């Protein structure tokens, strides 16, 4: 299939429909409005359903209902809207339903701003809602990767019976890039025989539920969920490395920020300064496998974020005390510039080089 030039938010919609998503429940919020608008225009053409809910809370609970019926369903929002959706996300995880949630992150806290940000890292990777649960969280760095990961997200959601989040930022939602919708291999997925679709008198009722009043049963449920998350931790870590042969500093950055870091790395390489990058593609599970073997040249980590250092904890966990972990970030809709990253690296290297 040939490449087409698409805006990020619309490419997400096209990828979802390509992946078999026929149900979308959303609520307007900047900067992701092109996505529900696209779905309202395109879903009816393929026999799908778009509903503009009365709130983010209602939208995610519609997703929960449709997911319980066994269909491929998606919602999207931006940070404060995702905060409202945490109730339903927790229920979807607790009831073990597949669903895809797109977060086009904007600045916070509170009403924050409508500019790009990565300040939902903790909200996305630490649960966000109540209880012991995790989402599989993808953080694509460009629109092609967004499209590919979004299509994977539906398969992974079905496979694990777990909500999957695709986390971008205002930049990736608004930018235009050429994108290709690749032929996707058929994935062997289990039948959704758990779905509540009516018994047709042929089986005992199916119940979609996250309530376990007996403590023994809820603990068993939590243990089983944790076993599932452990399998996800083992099988679903994704990352990219860049210039990791003999770096003095290893930058860690995800999403669009990683692109800025790469350009800083290229600039410094021209001056003979070697800086590497580990780019988490999954932020949950965090790609700890990428941090097992570190080049001997590395003196420190540098977390680069469009937030105030939310990823530092994860880097420290996988670093296991080996190297210092430094931080450079901008927030509130301010985007780190390559020069800003270069300046921080020069300062860390003593300013002499």
């Amino acid at each position, binding site marked *: 299939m040939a490449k087409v030039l698409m805006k990020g938010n619309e490419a997400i919609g096209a990828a979802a429909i390509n992946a078999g998503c026929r149900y979308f429940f959303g609520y307007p919020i900047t900067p992701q409005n092109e996505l529900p608008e696209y779905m309202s225009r395109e879903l009816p053409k393929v026999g799908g359903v778009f509903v503009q809910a*009365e709130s983010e809370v*209602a939208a995610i609970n519609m997703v929960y209902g449709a997911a319980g019926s066994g269909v491929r369903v998606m919602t999207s929002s931006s940070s404060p809207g995702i905060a409202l959706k945490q*109730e339903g996300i927790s229920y979807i995880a607790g009831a073990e339903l597949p669903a895809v949630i797109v977060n086009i992150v904007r600045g916070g806290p509170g009403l924050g701003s409508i500019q790009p940000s990565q300040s939902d890292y903790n909200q996305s990777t630490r649960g966000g809602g109540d209880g012991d649960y995790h989402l599989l969280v993808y953080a694509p760095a460009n629109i092609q990767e967004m499209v590919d990961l979004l299509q994977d997200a539906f398969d992974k959601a079905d496979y694990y019976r777990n909500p999957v989040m695709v986390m971008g930022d205002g930049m990736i939602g608004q930018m235009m890039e050429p994108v290709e919708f690749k032929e996707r291999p058929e994935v062997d997925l289990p039948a959704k025989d758990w779905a509540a679709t*009516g*018994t047709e008198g*042929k089986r005992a009722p199916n*119940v979609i539920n996250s*309530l376990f009043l007996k403590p023994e049963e809820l603990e068993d449920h939590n243990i089983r969920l944790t076993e599932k998350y452990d399998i996800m931790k083992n099988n679903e870590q994704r990352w990219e490395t860049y210039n990791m042969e003999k770096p003095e500093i290893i930058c860690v950055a995800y999403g669009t920020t990683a692109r800025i870091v790469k350009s800083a790395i290229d600039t410094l390489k021209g001056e003979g300064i070697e800086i590497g990058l580990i780019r988490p593609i999954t932020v949950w599970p965090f790609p700890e496998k990428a941090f097992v073997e570190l080049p001997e040249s590395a003196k420190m980590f540098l977390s680069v974020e469009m937030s105030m250092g939310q990823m530092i904890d994860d880097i420290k966990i996988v670093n296991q005390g080996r190297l210092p972990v430094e931080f450079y970030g901008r927030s509130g809709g301010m985007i780190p510039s390559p020069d800003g990253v270069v300046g921080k690296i020069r300062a860390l290297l003593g300013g002499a080089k």
Partner: protein
Amino acid sequence: MAVVFQKTKGLTDKQTHYCPGCTHGIIHRLVAEVLEELDVLGETVGVAPVGCSVLAYEYFNCDMQEAAHGRAPAVATGIKRALPDKVVFSYQGDGDLASIGTAEIVHVAHRAEKITTIFVNNAIYGMTGGQMAPTTLIGQKTTTSPYGRDSNITGFPLRISEMLATIDGAVFVERVSVHNPAAIRKAKKAIKKAFEVQLEGKGFGIVEVLSTCPTNWGMTPVNALGWLEENMIPYYPLGNFKSPEEAK
């Protein structure tokens, strides 16, 4: 010899957790009897609420989904949009529907979702121990209105049926009661009509059922029936507020 009354196949054999004399059991039975009589048990997905009837999914003999508090209409919307040929209902109490879930119930009606809602109004929060509900009557004592509900402090009891009847998408709205056999027969008729409206694809239907809470009202089940009749019905008049013939 003919059996004139026996338990409906629309209910499972599970004994309910409801307090003695709680009329939830009667209302469950009416819904289940209607589903059986319409021969749609196998095509039905019900949505249970949070509140006393949180375990309704164990009692209705059909596929069920448990919703978050107040969100049953949104969950039912998701199900009905995914399964437009199935029968979808939500079963909700007054805390669930008339307090935390007001946005969801108004908008399920506003969208004219083809679902049926059974709204059980007993003027109190039962499960959490008898706190004030939006439907608690003026002067009624609850654990959070210990001096009796005072409209200067807490406003006035909310009449949900009257409010929803103003919405074009709500095509069937009726308030019924279950305090005696005649009222129960009428309640069943209304519930059946509400499901028929759904089967005919006409829009949203709701039946508000006045119900008792002997435990939290602090009276015997029999006295609770009398209290309902004497106190609730005058404020919440029974009757049909909207049927498809008059719906726009």
